[in-house]
């Protein structure tokens, strides 16, 4: 353990340039490996292991325990940051340049802060010297009573060991969160070294896409986990911690679009700097909200004295970055002007305005209760009703422009062209809306969601068909081969459209699940059945099972559709360690039309009380989210391929 500390101390002083990055990586890997080893070998002499681990916790949860609490999650943060630093370093070594070196220095600075946290307020390697020490006492709820019993440890928070997604969701989210350090590092490097222009925006833009893809996937996995585990049938509650990941996502999405404007039209550079800095500041704010226990939320598993440190760092980042930005403002102004609002860049401006307001709504809604309590001592809660009332119209506004943007050319569109291109998607969208309204559901939000989603998607398809047709008419080749060629030629554009299709899909899924679900609460005796949302649900029997790390108590139910048997569902409550309340775990039956979602409310030998829900088309939320992330990933890969192609081209030319 001393070795680990030694290395971390050694790295503590590093804010230098290149070779320390290797040390950073090494130190991060050693820290993480040491923590994992301690967990997997049940080394209860470490306070972290004693408080978070249990010998009975099965794989992969024992492995994932490394990031189940504050100290470990900071180690994960350090590891991911080291990984990104290493990636940046590889890029740097390939083409030596001051911009990359400066970016590495900035990342080193951020790393110093986070490794400093590990050494001070959030040391994961704190050693338990006595079982009665604060924290260590929790090793056993009754130290005097367990003299003979083997030391087991309480295990991680029950909610965190209830589903495999918990092992996946945090690392993916961190890849997104921490990845947003890279664009920030390039931006600060460009400002500090006075080298604004195409290079920083190209690199910042690309690294944002990487992080954004992970962040998108992380948010979707988080929603999915909440849905599968938290037993309220929801996936998004505008909880402060969810908002903490959503704010940087919104800002990064805005930057992905406005960064493109700078690359293509050489404008908005100042705004791009502001955005990149804001994105990074929002990730730190998010970490602060998540990890300081400031805001009570269903996610605040971890509370510690780390808050002031993170807040101080946030202020430092904001003040430092914007001071630097202000002193360099004469360099960053771009002179190009927008020719026409009816153009691709015009639609991106609208997109940026909407996303900025959107992000601001989430921000103010999240921190307003804090502010109010600070000044007036008055209690207020800002919850779903507030967010939905503002976010829903903003989302539809976004979809409106999402349908227009891809149809518009850069610089401006000749009069009448937009109308000629957009009228078909509008008609198709409206037709889909009418179809929905007449045959599926008359609920306003559902109809509106289908209308807008189909309008966006058909606009994309129409663009593809139009371009392929034009090529086919010229080349005489088949429409299909030309379609592939169109897709292959401008891959980054189509990757973006894939993300748009993903977002449209998510919107439809949300609208259906939120508005068309059925809900009922029933109590059944064994053998009794109930009709619900087209299913017949038969209560077979209660059951109990003892698993290594938990006691399971649940109800076994058969689900029938008509006379056909569909599935056996087992909603349950899991009891971990000394926890007597139990973690209620829903049973979910997924079908193409949507999910049947059963939650245990109460059970005894005579009867079971159940909450029944349906979530129509909920899979579209997961699918759409994954498509959105896939669009980002495709865009990154397409850039790499096109650059490799360009290099090969150059070599061939020589």
């Amino acid at each position, binding site marked *: 353990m001393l070795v680990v500390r030694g290395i971390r101390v050694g790295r503590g002083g590093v804010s230098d340039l290149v070779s320390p990055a290797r040390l950073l990586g090494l130190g991060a890997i050693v820290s993480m490996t040491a923590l994992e080893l301690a967990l997997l070998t049940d080394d209860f002499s470490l306070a972290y292991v004693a408080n978070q681990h249990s010998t009975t916790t099965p794989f992969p949860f024992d492995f994932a325990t490394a990031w189940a609490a504050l100290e470990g999650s900071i180690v994960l943060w350090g590891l991911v940051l080291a990984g990104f630093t290493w990636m940046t370093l590889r890029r740097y070594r390939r083409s030596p340049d001051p911009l990359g070196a400066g970016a590495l220095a900035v990342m080193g600075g951020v790393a110093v802060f986070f490794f400093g946290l590990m050494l001070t307020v959030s040391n994961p390697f704190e050693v338990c010297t006595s079982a009665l020490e604060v924290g260590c*006492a929790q090793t056993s709820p*009754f130290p005097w009573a367990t003299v003979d019993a083997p030391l087991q440890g309480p295990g991680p928070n029950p909610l965190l060991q209830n589903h495999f997604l918990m092992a996946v969701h945090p690392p993916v989210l961190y890849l997104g969160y921490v990845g947003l350090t890279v664009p920030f590092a390039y931006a600060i490097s460009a400002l500090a070294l006075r080298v604004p222009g195409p290079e920083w925006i190209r690199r910042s833009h690309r690294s944002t896409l990487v992080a954004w893809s992970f962040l998108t996937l992380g948010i979707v996995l988080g929603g999915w986990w909440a849905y599968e585990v938290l037993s*309220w049938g929801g996936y998004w*509650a505008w*909880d*402060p911690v969810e908002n903490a990941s959503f704010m940087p996502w919104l800002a990064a999405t805005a930057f992905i679009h406005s960064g493109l404007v700078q690359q293509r039209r050489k404008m908005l550079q100042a*705004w791009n700097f*502001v955005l990149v800095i*804001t994105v990074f*500041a929002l990730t730190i704010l998010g970490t602060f909200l998540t990890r300081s226990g400031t805001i*009570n*939320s*269903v996610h605040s598993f971890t*509370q510690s004295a780390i808050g*002031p440190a993170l*807040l101080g760092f946030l*202020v430092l980042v*904001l003040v430092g970055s*914007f001071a630097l930005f*202000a002193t360099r*403002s*004469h360099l960053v*102004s771009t*002179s190009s*002007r927008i020719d026409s*609002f009816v153009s691709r860049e015009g639609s991106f*401006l609208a997109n940026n*305005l909407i996303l900025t307001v959107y992000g*601001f*709504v989430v921000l*103010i*809604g999240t*921190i*307003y209760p*804090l*502010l109010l309590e600070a000044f007036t001592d*008055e*209690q*207020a*809660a*800002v*919850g*779903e*009703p507030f967010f939905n009332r503002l976010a829903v119209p903003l989302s539809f506004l976004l979809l409106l422009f999402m349908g227009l943007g891809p149809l518009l050319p850069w610089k401006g569109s000749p009069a009448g062209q937009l109308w000629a291109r957009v*009228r078909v998607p509008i008609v198709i969208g*409206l037709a889909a*809306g*009418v179809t929905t*309204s007449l045959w599926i559901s*008359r*609920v*306003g*939000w559902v*109809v*509106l969601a289908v209308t807008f989603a189909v309008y966006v998607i058909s606009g994309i398809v129409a663009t593809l068909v139009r371009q392929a047709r034009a090529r086919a008419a010229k080349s005489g080749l088949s429409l299909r081969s030309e379609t592939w060629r169109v897709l292959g030629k401008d891959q980054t554009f189509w990757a973006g459209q894939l993300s748009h299709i993903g977002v449209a899909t998510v919107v439809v899924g949300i609208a259906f699940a939120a*508005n068309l679900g059925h809900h009922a609460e029933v109590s059944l005796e064994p053998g009794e059945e109930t009709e619900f949302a087209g299913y017949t649900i038969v209560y077979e029997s209660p059951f109990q099972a003892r698993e290594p790390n938990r006691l399971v108590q649940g109800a076994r139910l058969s689900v029938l559709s008509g006379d056909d048997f569909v599935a056996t569902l087992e909603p349950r409550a899991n009891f971990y360690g*000394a926890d*007597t*309340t139990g973690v209620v775990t829903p049973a979910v039956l997924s079908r193409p039309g949507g999910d049947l979602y059963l939650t245990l*409310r109460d059970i005894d030998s005579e009867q079971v009380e159940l909450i029944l829900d349906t979530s129509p088309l909920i899979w579209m939320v997961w699918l759409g989210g994954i498509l959105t992330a896939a669009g980002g990933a495709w865009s990154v890969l397409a850039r790499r391929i096109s650059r490799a192609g360009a290099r090969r081209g150059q070599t061939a030319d020589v």
Partner: protein
Amino acid sequence: MSERARNGVFLAAIIGLAVVLALTVSVRPQSESRVSHIGSRIKCPVCQGESIADSPSQMAQDMMALIAERVAEGVSDEAIEAELLDAYSGAVLLDPPMSGRTLALWLAPPAVALIGLAVIVRWRRQSPIAAGDGTVDPGSARKLAGGILLTGAMVAIVVIAATTLQDREGPAAGVANPDTQDLENVSNETMEAVIASNADHPEINGMRLALAERYYEAGDYRSAFPHYLAVVDSGQATQPEAVTSLVRLGWMAYEGNTETETALSLFDRALEIDPSSQVALYLKGTVLWCGDRDAESARALFTALLDDPELPEESRAQIEDDLALLDSGEGCA
């Protein structure tokens, strides 16, 4: 078909479809009942940021039941909300009203939208056609200033939030004489903070016990345990405080860990301090009986308790039930 005619067809189609849509769509959501609608607007007092419609906690279920009752009685949404907010401290509206102190919350987003629009429009109007590379134009600079202002506001907000934290913890942690009478509205976290910073205060045991009782009621034995233990170990606990703590520790040892021996020794310690403690006697009997140790001693303890004239009526009924079960030879309830 001429372009003009085609235009007409599209326009007609759009208008036609839009009219059909407007006629068929219903604006009011169907699936949400009035009860769950009201429930979704009120924050559950004992949970962390959940509405009472979403929360599985007992209090939330009680509140939902009250809503259902009032809806059936035909009371208006507003009246029901007002009643709940009044009756349950800590229950707050999740949908802050567009007035008073939360008015700013509603005004800020449109204000930002308007500022953004104004910035874009001015930027477009004022930016001159590029005179050449590297020219600085005032429009861009102005936009930039707007951006800085916006983020400056963010900094301010964050800093203010920081002071909130200080404020909230400051006076609470400074409470020198924690008075258990006024603890009803104090959150668990605040109490933990106060206890942590006043651990050696002679009168902290009252607050410790109040907090431990909360955890105990909620079944959170792990959190309750260190506080009871600290009260016992403090050496400054009053007689009832020590007895309560020992009894609770004993019951937690039995119920949470089935540590029968530990539980019995703890009850005995409590009885050493107060030989007439009804709770200690009753629980000792229960553990002797349910832990399959000594049903006869349990019977003796229960019978002796029934002789106590100060035994409350409900307890008497409970013990009589238990004795009946004991006599019938069935297992403990």
